[in-house]
């Protein structure tokens, strides 16, 4: 199908984008890899698209005060090639090849993926597993929102109607940091049937600070806190038994299948977390 008519404007500054968001049914256009698909299918029909692709300085990946900051307009392909991400944000590096396909990753942005908050997408779960945060700017200025407070519901976030996500930040991985990532999809690069992003700290022989963020099993990325505690205790099978996810049936799989696959992924990810880091 073709999109319903809308008007289009390139924002020349962040302030202009924020002001334009005050117009009725206005939407931001970043990479467009989800938005334009929904326009084509007429699942959404905004009256104004505000193209923020030309805004300067919003695509920088940098290390600041022990945090890795990724500008909202950094494209997936850019993150995939980034040395800073490879060295200091290994969970994001691991997740990157699972996100869409090369042509999608050339356009899609990290900020867009977080702001869109698809429950089956990889990056929202990574942000939650890493206890990261989001920076947003709006008419009242800048604020920081923790990942745990950001994902509110199905495609719903803590962003206000006139707020623009400008960056995401995750703690830079230190020597004891361990990450794991696994996903099951019908075809490489498709949205997950079930996926799992995880981070932990290794001290001595055991794991601490285990964070397991599942995607594709609810309206938002979901932490499996009981399983986190069991995994910190060192028992993988106990962690699998402690999974208390409540997925719904969807077009890809039944709830029963998803629950089974969540256990399969937990075993794989636990192995990654326990692997010695080179």
């Amino acid at each position, binding site marked *: 199908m073709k999109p319903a*008519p*809308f008007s289009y404007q390139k924002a020349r500054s962040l302030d202009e984008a924020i002001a334009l968001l005050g117009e009725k049914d206005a939407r931001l256009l970043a990479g467009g890899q989800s938005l*334009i698909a929904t326009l084509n*299918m007429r699942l959404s029909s905004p009256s*104004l698209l505000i*193209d923020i692709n030309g805004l300067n300085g919003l695509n920088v990946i940098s290390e600041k005060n022990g945090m890795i900051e990724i500008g909202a307009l950094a494209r997936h392909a850019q993150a995939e090639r980034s040395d800073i991400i490879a060295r200091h944000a290994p969970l994001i590096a691991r997740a990157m090849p699972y996100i869409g396909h090369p*042509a999608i990753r050339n*356009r899609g942005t990290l900020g867009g993926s977080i702001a869109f908050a698809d429950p089956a997408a990889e990056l929202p779960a990574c942000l939650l597993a890493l206890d990261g945060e989001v920076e947003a700017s709006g008419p009242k200025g800048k604020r920081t929102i923790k990942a745990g407070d950001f994902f509110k519901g199905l495609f719903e976030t803590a962003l206000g109607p006139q707020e623009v996500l400008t960056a995401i930040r995750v703690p830079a991985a230190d020597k004891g940091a361990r990450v794991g990532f696994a996903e099951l999809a019908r075809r*490489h690069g498709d949205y997950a049937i079930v996926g799992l992003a995880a981070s932990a700290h290794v001290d001595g022989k055991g794991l601490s600070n285990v964070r397991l963020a599942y995607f594709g099993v609810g309206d938002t990325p979901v932490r499996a806190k009981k399983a986190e505690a069991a995994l910190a205790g060192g028992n993988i099978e106990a962690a699998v038994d402690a999974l208390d996810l409540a997925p719904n049936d969807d077009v890809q799989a039944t709830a029963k299948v998803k629950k089974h696959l969540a256990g399969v992924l937990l075993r794989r990810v636990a192995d990654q977390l326990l692997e010695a880091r080179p």
Partner: protein
Amino acid sequence: MSNHALDITLTVNGERVQGRVDARKTLVDFLREDLFLTGSHVGCEHGVCGACTVRVDGDIVRGCLMLAAQCDGANVETIEGLSDSGEVADLQAAFEQRNALQCGYCTPGMLAAAQDLLKRGGVPSREEIREHLSGNYCRCTGYHAIVDAVQAVAQQRAGKSR
């Protein structure tokens, strides 16, 4: 201030092109309907099938997931350009020799995606080829012949450049 129709100037296959486009017109529809470059195909129109794959500023993208209005100032290359310049001539020959196409609907996108991988140099593994082409659906061949053709060309090119 806001616009339903926009004037754009871009380069398509090396030629400067000007046009007035509806804001809602996708790049692939602009190429096909306004420029009559019908080699880029429209399949699913939501980014899944890859039939509309074209190059924008050197990178492959989904022609259905970019608006023509966003391409003001861009350098766009379609299968017509890749074909006329001879850049994918060896891939096209290998696809033909190995029956890597039947109906041909996916072929322009498949060639653009394959060339995107091969222009990085080296000989990718079959697994890497499959992964790079994972965003391009083919409903005829079962993919084996396509992977064969891409791998053969990679080996051929590596041999030549040695």
